[in-house]
């Protein structure tokens, strides 16, 4: 379970949010809402352990993030804005090398199958720079199928996706929740998911 108590985030002089507390139990998802620049991405980065909050603390399974970074990161799948795609590598290489650095070796077949499920069959060997924004996003989302992790933190996962991909992604998230996982998402649109918790910044 992910829990946050009395979190304050400060960027320079500006306080983005103050005294934020919530808990995210297993099988639940949390929507982080708020206008542009409200601090949604900053919150996600704090939750992922990439940056430190000005005040307050984040705990995962009752332990503070800093106590055991490796164990927390083994449980975490984080997809940020940029998502670490290399333009000069093919989608297949991007997936296998990226996951390889995290200590997972899904194998080329599994990676190709995941790409296929997101409608990218036939493009596995094409350099990523030839893919559209939506297709790049889908390559990233394939990580959700290939790397098991109980906690997903996804920054605007539905951006740039077409109807088919939105369907695949929401089914993935539903299955993740049904199997006891939890997820934190930001989005500006209404999400095609069963009702979850929400936090507004």
């Amino acid at each position, binding site marked *: 379970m992910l829990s946050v108590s009395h979190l304050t985030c400060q960027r320079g002089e500006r306080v983005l949010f103050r005294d934020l507390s919530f808990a995210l139990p297993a099988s639940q998802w949390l929507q982080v809402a708020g206008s542009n620049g409200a601090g949604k991405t900053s919150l996600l980065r704090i939750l*992922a*352990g*990439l*940056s*430190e909050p000005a005040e307050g603390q984040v705990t995962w399974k009752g332990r503070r993030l800093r106590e055991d970074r*490796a*164990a927390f*990161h*083994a449980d*975490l799948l*984080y997809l*940020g*804005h*940029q*998502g*670490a*795609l*290399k333009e*000069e*590598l093919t989608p297949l*290489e991007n997936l296998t*090398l*990226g996951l*390889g*650095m*995290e*200590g997972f070796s899904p194998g080329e077949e599994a990676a190709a199958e995941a790409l296929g499920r997101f409608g990218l069959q036939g493009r596995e060997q094409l350099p990523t720079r030839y893919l559209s924004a939506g297709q790049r996003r889908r390559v990233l989302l394939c990580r959700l199928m290939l790397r098991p992790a109980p906690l997903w933190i996804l920054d605007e996962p539905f951006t740039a996706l077409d109807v088919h991909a939105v369907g695949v992604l929401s089914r993935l998230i539903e299955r993740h929740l049904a199997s006891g996982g939890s997820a934190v998402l930001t989005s500006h649109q209404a999400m095609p998911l069963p009702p979850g918790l929400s936090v507004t910044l």
Partner: protein
Amino acid sequence: MNGAFAPFRQAVRRDLLLAARHKTEVITALFFFVIVVNLLPLGIGPDQDLLRKIAPGALWIGALLATLLGLQRLFAPDHQDGTLEQMALSPQPFTLLIAGKIMAHWLVSGLPVVMVAPLLGVQFDLPGRSLAILTLSLLLGTPILSLIGAVGAALTLGVRGSGVLLSLLILPLYIPALIFGAGAVEADLAGLGIEGHFSLLGALLLACIVFAPWVTTVALRVALE
């Protein structure tokens, strides 16, 4: 052993594959080295004694500058596209992944320099024994350049005008490697032993292998905040 170093090998493999897709960058650094070192005999003229004397220094300075050329791109692209973030969030030790990146940088920018150094040394009329010593000193010394350079690249990551700052920060730190590396050949020509120079170069390399990846990681975590 094998398992513990898996992230290191993965990072090396990934960066080498990326370098293979960016052949021009690799070739540019190597050509830069060849041209810089070639300009000196052209500028100084055919005075064999003088050329023989400046050869070690010329090759070493060429190696320093060639290393510097690739350093700016060691972390910047990975920072821009979020790869560094994913590395920092990996359950694998961040330091090992970064050590892998530094190793790949040396394989791509340092090793080619070491391999062409004997050829360029011939231009300076260096005798065979001096050529061997020079090449060996570069083999020990170029990893030091990559390791110290990585610290500088991490510290200047995301800073505007980082290229100039990086040079100002790093070049003074290269002085010990330059002195002992280039000095080894001169010591041999003067009839003094080379053991002292090589021992110091080796000690410097070991210290860098232990500390540089760790310091780089700390600097990168700050840059990612």
